[in-house]
């Protein structure tokens, strides 16, 4: 287990729009829970390569490969609001294990 903030790779189609919203929302939600995180945004096509740089979790709004070696959470909750509490819990859980 490494010390310091947890690293989350946030993926979407273009790495501009959706992942910006999602990354912001995750940082705020985790801050409220007292979990310090850093995020990096990327395109879904870059996930497999970037994840090797050492991330604790991948959160994505588009399909990504499922053999990444770290937990992957696929969710639209930060865009649509539906299931947001559950998604926040799931992320917090994944970071604490």
């Amino acid at each position, binding site marked *: 287990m490494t010390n310091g903030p947890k690293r989350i790779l946030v993926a979407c189609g273009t790495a501009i729009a959706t992942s910006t919203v999602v990354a912001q929302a995750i940082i705020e939600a985790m801050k409220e829970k007292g979990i310090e995180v850093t995020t990096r945004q990327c395109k879904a096509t870059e996930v497999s390569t970037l994840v090797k740089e050492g991330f604790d979790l991948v959160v994505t709004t588009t399909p990504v490969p499922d053999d990444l070696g770290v937990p992957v959470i696929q969710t639209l909750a930060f865009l*649509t609001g539906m299931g947001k509490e559950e998604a926040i819990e799931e992320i917090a859980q994944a970071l604490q294990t």
Partner: protein
Amino acid sequence: MEISKYLHPEATILQMDGGNSEDVIRGLGDKLFSLGHVKDDFVDATLQREANMPTGLPLEGSINAAIPHVDIEFVNSPALGLATLKEPVTFYNMVETETEVPVRLVIMLALDQPKSQVEMLRSVAQVLQNTALVNQLMEATSFEEVISALK
């Protein structure tokens, strides 16, 4: 809300009747092109991206949305296009890309720099998460009504 700043009467199509998702994307994209916000290949690139990586979003209420957009290289300056549709058109779900989403609210995003439009994107998400506001937008028949709903 921040979102109002990026909307244009010309690129706001209300109560659109008939057509499919491509017609909506073309309709909005062509307007953003005439306004100078996007390059001439923006529409084709957006359609292609929508086919590979769809942007349909099932929302809490009865109305679903789509947020078509594409890489920054096709954009000159940031803007939004907005369309409300009388009848749903078929988009596909962003996460479950085989799943159809009947969409009546389309917000097209033209973004020119990563992270530069965080507030605008945040307010788009706020709109999508606000069922009452979505319903208000669906009823709007003029650009002024859209802007006043978004205040």
